[in-house]
């Protein structure tokens, strides 16, 4: 079930009152059962994989606790990582690599009898695999004690608000919250409800409202103008941000009203002026995961400049592949790595652009320019084929025919986008980026903003619903 469905509403109406009245241990049991129902709603067979991943890493954690022999500990870590990545690789990448291999060998007259299997991709597998792996890493590094309770560990891995699309929580942060009694303050409740509203507004009113316009261009079977490509790509930037950050907002809001604090996953990424800043603001839980468990272990920026560039490219390339089994995601990752390298070379590793200290007008200009760089990445991300990437790149850069035939987004999408831009601009300019900036406003002003969000959300309910983009990852 998804957050934007009636069945989920019913689910929460049953689960939440029970959660409020139960004592701590029973709350955890309820969360675990609820999370398994939530996940199994898609396909009960997915539960087996979730159980396998959780059980494996819980056992490895217990075994790590019992030994201090470095070689044995390394072996256990390697076994856990290998098993997790093999599982992820099989379910997510087998067909991709088998198909790619078949395509590669075909020109040489070698035809593989088998190329693909009928494998269903378990929803959210990349997210919970990484989350579970973070536990093994942290126990191995002795950053946290072993989780003794299998039920607590299962609750941590399967915690339904962030199970299928993040944020990818660290075991060191979330397991203690599972284990300790939780209190739900008025502050957490109001903030949580606001986040849920904001997330629903972003997803239903804006993201779903612009999706048909994006699809009309990226799924087109006819010739397009450069204006079509540019407008659709800008709109896709809006779509993916509102879709993904909307999901994260709802997840964080749901967690908050249950007494949990999940990490901030998006921090106004489109006000970034360079790729380094962008990755500190976009999908923070993944970028920090990759930094801590991949980039730094392979050397980070501790070696020569050349090694640093290599590490950046490897990290971002694999980060791209994490998104999906397709070459355009790899290309997107390589592109992100490349612009990070260029930026690093340009600034010689220093924050030469003084991201937060430039004059307002110059920063706005930098934001506008860098947004185009980000959007080209989105073109790579959204494209359906290599041929489309080539054609769209050519059209976007060299083709200036008018008019554009992109369908106009729905009224709630346009109204929602205007409202969102106003709120984000206020947050960036007047509130120094503070996410709870609206709380300092007088009650009538807050009431007006909430009413506007609700009104546009109601209008947006007429948009044709689309699946959350990141569910496929």
């Amino acid at each position: 079930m998804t957050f934007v469905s009636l069945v989920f509403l019913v689910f929460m109406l049953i689960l939440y009152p029970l959660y409020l009245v139960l004592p701590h241990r029973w709350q955890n049991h309820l969360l675990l059962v609820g999370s398994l129902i939530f996940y199994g709603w898609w396909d009960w067979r997915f539960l087996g994989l979730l159980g396998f991943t959780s059980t494996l890493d819980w056992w490895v954690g217990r075994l790590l606790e019992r030994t201090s022999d470095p070689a044995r500990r390394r072996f256990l870590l390697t076994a856990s990582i290998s098993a997790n990545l093999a599982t992820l690789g099989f379910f997510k990448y087998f067909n991709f690599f088998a198909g790619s291999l078949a395509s590669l060998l075909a020109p040489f007259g070698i035809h593989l009898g088998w190329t693909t299997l009928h494998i269903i991709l378990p929803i959210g597998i990349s997210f919970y695999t990484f989350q579970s792996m973070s536990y093994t890493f942290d126990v191995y590094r002795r950053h946290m004690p072993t989780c003794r309770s299998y039920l607590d560990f299962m609750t941590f891995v399967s915690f339904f608000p962030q199970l299928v699309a993040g944020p990818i929580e660290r075991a060191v942060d979330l397991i203690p919250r599972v284990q300790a009694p939780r209190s739900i303050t008025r502050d957490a409740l109001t903030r949580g409800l606001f986040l849920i509203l904001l997330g629903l507004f972003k997803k239903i009113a804006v993201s779903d409202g612009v999706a048909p316009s994006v699809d009309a261009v990226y799924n087109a079977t006819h010739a397009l103008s450069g204006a079509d490509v540019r407008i659709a790509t800008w709109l896709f930037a809006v779509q993916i941000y509102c879709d993904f950050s909307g999901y994260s907002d709802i997840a964080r809001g749901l967690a908050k009203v249950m007494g949990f604090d999940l990490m901030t996953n998006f921090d106004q990424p489109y006000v970034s002026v360079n790729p380094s800043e962008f990755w500190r603001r976009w999908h923070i839980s993944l970028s920090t995961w990759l930094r801590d468990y991949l980039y730094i272990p392979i050397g980070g920026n501790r070696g020569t400049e050349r090694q640093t560039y290599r590490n950046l490219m490897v990290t971002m390339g694999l980060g791209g592949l994490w998104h999906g089994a397709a070459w355009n995601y790899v290309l997107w990752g390589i592109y992100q790595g490349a612009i990070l390298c260029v930026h690093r070379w340009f600034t010689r590793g220093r924050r030469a652009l003084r991201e937060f200290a430039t004059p307002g007008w110059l920063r706005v200009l930098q934001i506008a320019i860098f947004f185009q760089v980000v959007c080209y990445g989105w073109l790579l991300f959204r494209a359906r084929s290599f041929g489309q990437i080539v054609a769209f790149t050519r059209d976007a850069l060299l083709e200036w025919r008018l008019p554009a035939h992109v369908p106009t987004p729905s009224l709630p999408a346009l109204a929602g986008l205007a409202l969102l831009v106003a709120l984000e601009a206020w947050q960036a300019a007047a509130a120094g980026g503070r996410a709870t900036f609206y709380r300092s406003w007088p009650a009538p002003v807050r009431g007006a903003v909430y009413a506007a969000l609700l009104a546009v959300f109601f209008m947006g309910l007429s948009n044709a619903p689309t699946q959350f983009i990141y569910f496929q990852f």
Partner: protein
Amino acid sequence: MNPRRSDLLATALWTLAFLIAADFALGRVFRMPADPRQPPAPLAQYFDFGASIESKMRRMVAAEDSASAPVALAGWLEPFNDGNAPLAAPAGRRLVAVYGQSFTFQLTQALAALDSTILLRTRGGPSSPASHGYAFWQSDRGRVHAEVAILGVLASSVRGLDASSAATWEFEAPPLYTYPRYRVDARGRPVPHPPYVLSLAGVRAALADPVRMRAWQAQLARDDDWYDPLLWRASWLDHSVFARVLRRAWAQRQQREHLARVHGRAGFREDSDNLRTLRALIGSFVEGCRADGTLPVVLLLEDAGYADHLSRALGPELDRRGALWMGTHELADAGNPANLKADGHFIPALNERLARALLARLDSVRGVAGPGIAPPRQDSPRRPAPASERAGK
């Protein structure tokens, strides 16, 4: 910072107050015109999309036809009125009877512009589904002496085959006409289940008499799979903009689910009642025309979002019957916005191209085999279009 309870209450009340104020203000500013003949402003229409069908009908239907909304007058099977539509062709002309909707009419008008001997008789209504066109054709049988009868099947109207009123499945901007709901009997023939209301006068009577309205609703509940009391019945909620917006969202959800049972990404669903009915209707139309000595032509109008789905669903059946047919996707991709006007109809140039192709097919049959006879295989309409026809596709 833990907000005080009084602050929370104040914020909640302010939110509610602003919502109520916005509801009232939007309702006042974006009002539908009092005169149903006046076209509404786009935003007024947007906020009215979710009004109940009954309240829309009350606004559209005035005491006199002349004072009612034009769309309310369109498409009625009764009263039986030929108006200026010819029943037979004068010497030197050939009568082409056309049953369908604006897509069909625009294409056949282009056909008549290409061949001055063609005299058109057009019957149908906005978004007319094939069952509606078929009912018009049935009412013409025995009275009209046409050389050619064209049934226009619009892909996006196939959904209306399990309805008996255009108002139920065109919820947001409903035409009001009704038509029989056809069900397929054991021998594969379409059997009509006539609507309770047959004319605009019948709508007036139902709006004035709750008993008749209930009888109409009972018939809709029986014969119209799109009927939903929540969407049909007027209530005090029609006065609230946000209630209308929420009702519209509910309607969209219901309609998406309904449409998914008829049509999916891969095409029309083989197990859908609509497709079974459609095949029975076109089969009956083809055989009936032949029995009447008329050449049957089935136009498959594949509008945006349907690719060649109609041709794939009906082409084999039409070929099996040796019927003359043409799918528009063969010559023009409705997925290309350059082929469409802002309202979704084909651009005139495309209609002309389609009309030329249709005329060539009609001429290839005419004189070769005579009316009502299957075209020779080499002239099969499923052959690839000539390059000249495909130009600009």
